[in-house]
């Protein structure tokens, strides 16, 4: 058996290297899983982790990388602020959907406007939608002490029901011959989140994600509010003593993460997804939880983790088409990554001693 010995101070080395170790372990375990599924593990891992960046068709995949990474990073940045403070917004998926619906609905309401103000207004509408959806668990928590995990999660199912409803009802394309799904934003230039640099996959969502990373970095490291967020997560009683108002912090953190998730949804639906449809959301809201942890709740880390997670999506698609690897295998791989990360995280704060154990 092993025994854990608390380090006097967290190890900087392990804090930085546990995510890398977790990725390596995931590749090993994932390779074993691929072999079990009858796929060549080396080929699978190369297809997922290497080819999209350096392979023959990298010119195509590289663009995809940013397209997938942007919403993940946007959502995860918001989540990581809350997670740092011990505020668990698990319902980003719902905020993402509602942000997408509000942004898209605002644009579709003015169809076929050609105003250059339309797209900026849609951005605001998307952020506002996500923010409002996140305010429900935030206000319930501060007013009634309701568990924000359960409420924000329940609201995901409510949001999904609303998405199903509007995509075949309110927002259905009137020229769509009765098929579910809204008008396609590609045919609606004033409301379309078009690529700014097509080959690199850069659209407004990518720009916003980069801004969010910079904003979060400055907030956490320089600003009093960021210090309060970190303090609340590290020692809630000390935070109260330092004068932090916990309710205020809940509202701020939930609000920021809701707004960012809403933005992500809005950029996704008006760009890469193209239309409101029952399944436009690709579970980014949940995957972003993994991204936030994998990035150690640190803005720069989140950015790197978002890129890595995007790689598993892009590489997973490639592996599905070239090697016939099932999509669920990628989902499982992502789940494994979070597991391994949590498992090796212990190294940052504890030394592991093998051998004689304590009594009791």
């Amino acid at each position, binding site marked *: 058996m092993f025994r854990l010995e608390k380090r*006097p101070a967290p190890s900087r080395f392990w804090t930085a290297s546990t995510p890398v170790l977790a990725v390596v372990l995931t590749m090993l375990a994932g390779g074993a899983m691929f072999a079990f599924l009858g796929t060549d593990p080396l080929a699978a891992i190369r297809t997922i982790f290497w080819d999209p960046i350096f392979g023959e068709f990298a010119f195509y995949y590289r663009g995809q990388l940013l397209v997938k990474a942007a919403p993940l990073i946007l959502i995860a940045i918001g989540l990581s602020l809350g997670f740092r403070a011990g505020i668990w917004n698990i319902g980003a998926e719902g905020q993402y959907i509602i942000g997408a619906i509000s942004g898209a609905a605002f644009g579709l309401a003015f169809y076929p406007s050609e105003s250059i103000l339309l797209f900026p207004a849609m951005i605001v509408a998307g952020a506002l939608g996500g923010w409002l959806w996140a305010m429900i668990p935030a206000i319930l928590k501060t007013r009634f002490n309701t568990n924000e995990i359960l409420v924000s999660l329940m609201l995901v199912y409510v949001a999904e029901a609303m998405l199903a409803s509007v995509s075949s009802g309110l927002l259905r394309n009137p020229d769509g011959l009765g098929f579910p799904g809204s008008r396609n934003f590609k045919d609606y230039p004033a409301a379309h989140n078009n690529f700014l640099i097509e080959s690199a996959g850069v659209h407004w969502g990518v720009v916003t994600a980069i801004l969010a990373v910079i904003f979060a970095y400055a907030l956490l490291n320089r*600003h009093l509010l960021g210090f309060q967020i970190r*303090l609340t997560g590290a*020692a809630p009683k000390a935070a109260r*003593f*330092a*004068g932090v108002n916990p309710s205020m912090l809940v509202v701020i953190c939930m609000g920021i993460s809701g707004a960012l998730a809403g933005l992500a949804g809005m950029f996704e639906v008006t760009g890469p997804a193209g239309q409101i449809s029952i399944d436009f959301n690709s579970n980014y809201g949940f995957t972003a939880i993994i991204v936030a942890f994998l990035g150690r709740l640190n803005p720069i880390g989140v950015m790197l983790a978002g890129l890595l997670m995007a790689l598993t999506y892009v590489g997973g698609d490639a592996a599905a088409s070239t090697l016939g690897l099932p999509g669920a295998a990628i989902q499982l791989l992502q789940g494994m990554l979070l597991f391994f990360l949590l498992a090796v995280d212990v190294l940052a704060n504890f030394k592991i001693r093998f051998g004689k154990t304590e*009594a009791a």
Partner: protein
Amino acid sequence: MNEQLLIVDRLTKAYPGVVANDAVSFGVAPGEVHALLGENGAGKSTLVKMIYGLVRPDSGTMTWKGAPYEPGSPHDARKTGIAMVFQHFSLFEALNVAENVALGMEDPPPMGQLAARIREVSTRYGLPLDPVRLVGELSAGERQRVEIIRCLLQDPKLLIMDEPTSVLTPQEVEILFETLRKLSAEGTAILYISHKLEEIRSLCDAATILRLGKVVGTCDPREKSARELAELMVGQTLHTPTRESADVGDVVLDIDGLSLESANPFGTPLKNINLKVRAGEVVGIGGVAGNGQDELLAALSGELPSHPTAIRLRGQDVGDLGPNPRRALGLLAAPEERLGHAAAPDMSLTENAALTGTIREHLADNGFIKWGKARTFAQAIIRDFDVRTPGPENVARSLSGGNLQKFVIGREVLQRPDVLVVNQPTWGVDASAAADIRQALLDLAAKGAAVICISQDLDELMEISDRFAALNEGRLSETRPARELSIEEIGLMMGGAHGMEVAHVQA
């Protein structure tokens, strides 16, 4: 020495960076009351944990009634006949007295019978207890009775008591000692851990003195003076804090009819507290743990807001202000719990300096923290208060208790408070750090600040206070000049014996 009940021979236990026990040897005879004396960190707790089977020694042996004794767990210890009363109670607040007792017994009888036995034994030993009450609703003194009754129900041959009197009033201490003397007369050996010298001199037959994990002496405590014991324990002569006499000024802090519900379901509400504190004086507030100390500190620091007029600072209502507005006005505080309340364990000393210093030290500009300035402030605390640490970038939990406490108190003192409220400023701190901290509080008062010191250490309060008041069940007594008070009177102010009575057993 064949009649020894327990012999401990060269027990050694090392933790990373510290040898908690280094070849410790001693013996206890049946019926003997044996003191383990030492400062915080001397290794007393580790030693008794090894005897109770909670910690396994690295080397060394124990012998029980002539046979080897190697407890693998507390269950083994209890089966052998060893019982222990813990300093931080091993009790469960949401369970009732009988359930708590059952959990500490090896073969408890059915609940009905157990309840009857608890009533019977608790009455016999003068420690009345109601078996169906929730432990969370009991006072600290009553909780200790639960622990003691739990031990007594198992007819122990050796009873270990870890700092048992820190939660008792002087009257209750006397009654407890009567009970212990009777137990000893019945043949039960008692291993008594304390750093309170007078207690040991009045109760114990023998003493083993530990310093930094080693036995530095054994003696008959009745033949030594408290001073001699203290020097053995600390290893040096300590200076007693001194103060320059200062004129007491105007009332700065006026607590007027403060009543407050506790934030904790098992906490103590404050009831109509009145206290005026003048510039330049130290008011000591005594009382047994759990009588509203934490709530009083939270009410004064601003963590628990109250009615605006319940607390006035220089005539200004501050009762409803949060901690930071109060800091801006000059009312500062240092709570009891160092790690997690006064300081964030995993944050650097620089960050911990900013934790309370942002307002008065102007460490933020438009909401942006000036980390360079915060670091300078942290360095000033480290320098002025002799905090032993490699530097301000180290995290709070890497410091020893005494050093972190010096940092916490220093952080507030350096901000030039008009009123400083501290709770248990030297709890669990080594003697030399404790002396430094008390001196700092006295110096602060001499410079004209008002100091409120909440503490459970009566010696400390007598040493530094000008006036004394006691908290009992959330009520504060009248203040009395500290110099005029006898231990007897202090005990009565703290609530007397709280229903305890002398044991009814015949010795």
